[in-house]
């Protein structure tokens, strides 16, 4: 049906893409959103629970995909629930990917223009970002995955260095007492992690490209564990520096953590610019994968050429990201996407899997 399906990626490539897809702009605000919801320092447990939950829902998606080897969700959904519903659902999911892409680009714009490139108009930044993404996505899934693999050593190293350095302002007492308020608030903190753990949905199309789809479960587990580790580190360190009361006052708590210390024994004294530059690359990956997913969905649903879809969606992404009027609207948009993800990827795949079983579709 499409030339892209000939494009194959290995299990490792798929895992790295998965990690890169999950790690995105969410990390900058996650410490605040979870603490706001739960109000205790135990939110790192919430983050771990969030990771486990997203792994469970992801497992359902994996099983569903394994029934239809070599096919993406956009292709097989109509076989399960009929063409009209299948097309509709596919459109909703493609729309979701589009919104993720817009959310990422808008977040990165906000942060960059505020902290890094004051005075640079945001459109100039967005244009460079979007056009490069288009160029990359035109290269197919292999190009995207190579890009991901290229940046992984850089981003992980910088992240690790920055985290270790931030121990300078870390105070363990800010994280204590553990479970002083019991488990109730911890559960409340799980929901806001859904935006950061938008994980399973990438599997809807990633598995179709895998050369060994049988190993998709491994991709899911490893691909979720690594980002969970990153997120827990970010949350623990940020709360350790600011305390629970302080975190909720910071717009970008993780960046403020990096801004809260200076070191005089390394080449650099300050690390926020370095981290931000690196993190822009990370967000770029997420953006590309989401954008790729949206375009792929559109091309497979409407039976149009993939490249044309990329071009068609390009302005749409930009327009959505520019419609958001304010920073509060951006955060609300993020929460909305998170809720959307819970419904689409937390609740929906299971009934689909059951229907597929009952109707004996797939192998």
């Amino acid at each position, binding site marked *: 049906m499409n030339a892209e399906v000939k494009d194959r990626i290995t299990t490792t490539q798929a895992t790295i893409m998965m990690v890169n897809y999950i790690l995105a702009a969410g990390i900058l605000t996650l410490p605040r959103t979870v603490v706001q919801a739960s109000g205790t320092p135990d939110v790192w447990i919430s983050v771990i629970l969030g990771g486990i939950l997203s792994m469970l829902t992801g497992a359902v998606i994996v099983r569903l995909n394994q029934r239809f080897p070599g096919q993406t969700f956009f292709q097989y959904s109509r076989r399960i629930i009929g063409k009209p519903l299948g097309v509709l659902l596919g459109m909703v999911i493609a729309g979701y990917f589009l919104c993720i892409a817009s959310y990422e680009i808008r977040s990165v714009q906000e942060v960059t223009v505020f902290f890094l490139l004051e005075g640079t108009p945001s459109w100039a930044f967005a244009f460079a970002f979007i056009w490069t993404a288009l160029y990359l996505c035109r290269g197919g899934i292999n190009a995207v995955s190579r890009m991901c693999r290229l940046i992984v050593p850089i981003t992980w190293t910088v992240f690790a260095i920055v985290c270790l350095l931030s121990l300078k302002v870390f105070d363990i007492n800010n994280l204590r007492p553990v479970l002083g308020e019991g488990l109730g608030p911890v559960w409340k903190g799980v929901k806001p992690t859904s935006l950061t753990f938008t994980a399973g949905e990438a599997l809807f199309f990633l598995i179709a490209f895998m050369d060994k789809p049988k190993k998709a479960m491994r991709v899911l587990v490893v691909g979720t564990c690594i980002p969970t580790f990153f997120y827990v580190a970010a949350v623990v360190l940020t709360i350790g520096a600011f305390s629970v009361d302080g975190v909720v006052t*910071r717009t970008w708590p993780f960046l403020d953590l990096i801004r809260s210390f200076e070191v005089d024994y390394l080449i650099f004294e300050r690390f926020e610019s370095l981290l931000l530059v690196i993190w822009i690359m990370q967000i770029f990956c997420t953006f590309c994968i989401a954008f790729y997913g949206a375009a792929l969905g559109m091309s497979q649903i409407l039976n149009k050429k993939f490249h044309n879809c990329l071009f068609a969606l390009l302005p749409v992404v930009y327009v959505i990201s520019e419609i958001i009027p304010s920073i509060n609207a951006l955060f609300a948009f993020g929460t909305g996407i998170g809720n959307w993800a819970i419904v689409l990827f937390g609740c929906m795949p299971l009934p689909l899997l059951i229907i597929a079983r009952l109707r004996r579709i797939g192998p």
Partner: protein
Amino acid sequence: MKRAGVIMMLLAACVLLSACWSSTPIEDLNLIVGIALDSADETEVEAGFEREGGNYPKEDKISCTYQFMIPQGAAGPQKGSSQTRNFNNITETGDSIFEAIRELLLRTNRPLNGYHLKTVVIGEQLARSMNISELIGFYTRDNNIRPNVLLLVSRGRARDVLNNALPGQIPAFVLEGIFNNRDRNTKIWEPVSMAMVVGPLYGKTSFLLQNVNSAGKEPKFAGAGVIKGKTGKLIGFLDESELEGMVWVTGKGKGGVLKTYDPDRDKLLTYEIKSMSSKIKAKVEGDDISFVVNIKSSGRYAEVLASGGKKLDKAWVEKDEKTLQKQVEKLAQSTVDKMQHELHVDVAGFGKSLHIQFPSVWRKVKEDWDETFSEIPVTYEVNIDIEEYGASGITAD
């Protein structure tokens, strides 16, 4: 034709990809390195401007003094020795800190820049009358000023602190640098950055800020200012030895001196602290809360006087350890006394210990903790270990 296309592309790239969209040469910037906030107190210059009609609608509430660094070389060759200062202070009075900083731009041609701000000093009068979180509101929100800027209070006028430094030094940097002496002096509180105060200010927890005084031509760290969490205002000071006691209670010191007199022989005894630690243990029996402060320290003799040049044997060392332990207890006790009975605040983290050890008890008392704490009995267990006596094994005659 193809080559022309490539050339066009390259030209376009040169124009479009050059990455200096909003750059400013560094020598054209006014780098703010220190800020002093005082209650309204206009300078001569400002009064002069106002007489000449340079005024705008405002309430005179805060006097902000900004300290700029003069980059070396930018000032040009200096004639005579009268001008050896490599910093410059400008004061602007107003009600909005942000408006005041922009008002300064009417007086200087160089854009102000807060990237290298190191210290903010708040004067006593202002800190007593305004909530600290209102005062630093702009600085914690701004994108150039980093949250690691240190906060201090000054008994007296904060502006004077920023005026004083030895030739060639910049006061804001001196203040920051003094904190590095914490490994040699226990009368310095930990450096408190803006990142560290947003939590307590928002959570209504009391805390301490280092106090700095200025007399003559030099600044001196002298005790600490106590900020009450409920109001966010300064309510009093700990003097130098009370701060020393606080450092012992919290175990936050890194090294320094402990001096006492031996009661029997009435001779000086000083001990150099190599390490110290402290644990606050909460005890709850029914509704009664009590605390035990467990202080440990190890170090060496620095000065030990006794006539006759006695050998520092085991018995002698043990006796001196007891004397020192009593001294630490006395210091700690007088600090806690002041917190409980004079200031009615807890800035030593007793509440945090209770919170960690008995979360359910803490929930009941946290509303009015500062007051509750005033009634709670505190006991001390001090353990000092004199490990060595340096290069001389006998007392000094």
